[in-house]
């Protein structure tokens, strides 16, 4: 509202009562604050644009030296050692193996704890457990990485003695543990948002607590639950530290989770830490891999939003 009073208020009308509606406060802040807030918002947008721009230009340069077909369909990744080859499939398979193991761990456990918290837990219990879960989400991932290496890996080697010190299973399990709080928290929000009246309707028909949870609450909250699963998936794909520490650095096209592998993120770390000269082809690989990663998570996030809208059982 910017109607500005440019002339003194005229007394008009028949009313004998005189009220003055002229502004008493300075509006200076109201003019500056929106500009400041806009700049803050613009900053993050500009950063995003900058990142995407760098990724695109560097990736473009890389693909002038390496054929995009070799990159996408090659089965051998060894950009640092001769004979060089730039097939991204081993990195992709490593990433997806970690992600799938993580989701197998995180989605059932996260969902089960969400059902417990939303349908069974006493208010007081929920008040204690939820913050604890959120603390779990705040643990630095490097800590999880050493947790995998020093606790989970020995356990796995106790069962399968042939397992390498670095292996996909251990890292995958721990990535899964790391994203349980996210799955749990988002699913719990979705389930708590299911109106009480629906639960009452089912209870009044003689449903037990478990039947209400499974057949009323979960279906009604499905869009939120699926969205949380997709976000978990994309979080697992992007996870870096745990896999760098625990999964090894052996790009390998394998289906055996007990072997050492390398993910896209761990590869980027490996190159960034080395002394790869700026502008070299090896240097270019990290942008190509970064771009691949970016496109995958970007598509997954769009999928999560689409799913959240599409599967809404409205209530």
């Amino acid at each position: 509202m910017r109607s500005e009073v440019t002339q003194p208020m005229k007394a008009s009308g028949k009313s004998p009562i005189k009220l003055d509606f002229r502004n008493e406060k300075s509006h200076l802040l109201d003019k500056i604050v929106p500009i400041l807030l806009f700049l803050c918002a613009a900053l993050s947008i500009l950063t995003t644009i900058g990142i995407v721009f760098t990724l695109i230009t560097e990736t473009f340069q890389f693909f002038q030296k390496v054929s995009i077909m070799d990159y996408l369909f090659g089965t051998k990744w060894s950009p640092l050692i001769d004979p060089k080859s730039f097939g991204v499939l081993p990195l992709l398979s490593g990433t997806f193996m970690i992600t799938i193991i993580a989701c197998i761990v995180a989605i059932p456990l996260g969902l089960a704890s969400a059902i417990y918290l939303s349908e069974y837990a006493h208010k007081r219990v929920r008040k204690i457990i939820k913050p604890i879960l959120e603390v779990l989400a705040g643990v630095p991932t490097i800590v999880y990485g050493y947790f995998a290496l020093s606790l989970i890996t020995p356990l796995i080697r106790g069962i399968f003695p042939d397992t390498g010190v670095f292996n996909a299973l251990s890292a995958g399990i721990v990535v899964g543990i790391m994203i349980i709080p996210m799955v749990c928290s988002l699913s719990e929000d979705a389930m708590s948002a299911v109106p009480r009246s629906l639960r009452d309707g089912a209870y009044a028909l003689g449903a037990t607590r478990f039947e209400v949870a499974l057949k009323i609450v979960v279906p009604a909250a499905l869009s939120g639950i699926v969205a949380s699963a997709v976000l978990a998936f994309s979080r697992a794909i992007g996870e870096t530290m745990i896999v760098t520490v625990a999964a090894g650095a052996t790009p390998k096209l394998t289906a055996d989770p007990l072997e050492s592998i390398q993910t896209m993120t761990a590869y980027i770390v490996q190159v960034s830490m080395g002394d790869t000269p700026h502008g070299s082809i090896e240097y270019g690989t990290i942008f190509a891999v970064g771009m691949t990663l970016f496109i995958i998570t970007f598509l997954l996030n769009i999928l999560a939003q689409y799913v959240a809208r599409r599967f809404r059982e409205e209530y």
Partner: protein
Amino acid sequence: MGTLIDIQSLNLYYGTFHALKDVSMDIPEKAITAFIGPSGCGKSTLLRTLNRMNDMIPGTRIEGQIAVGGTDIYSREVDVETLRKKVGMVFQQPNPFPKSIYDNVAYGPRLHGIRSKGKLDEIVETSLRSAALWGEVKDHLKRSALSLSGGQQQRLCIARALAVNPDILLMDEATSALDPISTLKIEELAQDLKDRYTIVMVTHNMHQAARVSNQTVFFLNGEVVEYSDTEKLFSNPRDQRTEDYISGRFG
């Protein structure tokens, strides 16, 4: 008319709040009994003790006895899910599940173990017929229940309650969220259903109680002030407070 529900000196507390005070009454079978009274008088609370929906509210404490068909429903042997199957309930806001019309009605029977498609089809049809909704929805049973109007949704909820074959139907202000025409339909439906079911309804609308019920109970501050035949209660109330309420002096 025999007594189906027998309430003896019932006291109910929400924490320290004494919500029902020494309530005793006999509710006859195959008739409509209406609970009336101002907001907060305990009428809905009493209704919800009859299928133990109050169990889920933490801090609720009950003394006294409620016998349904001769069994104390608060005794240890009573399975609350079986009780609720026999004592159906319809709520103030229509609350169909976000599923198809068919699945809403079939929900209860499926819950109680009926799997056969033929049997379910039959139950869905008879329940929707009993709820006077079959004619309107028979051609699109697969459509979402949420596409129905408010009045249709409420009749669907009645059909859903009838599908598990209850003896008693509790209606908790079931028409208060509906328009007058839908309200009238539900009232007519209740009249039809009372030949087969015992209906206990809470209503905010005393004209509704006067129109449809056989017995009326007037509550005030958690106590039963007066309980008699509807006609008598409205034409010749015994208690001054009842007279004040039904003549609109308060509430």
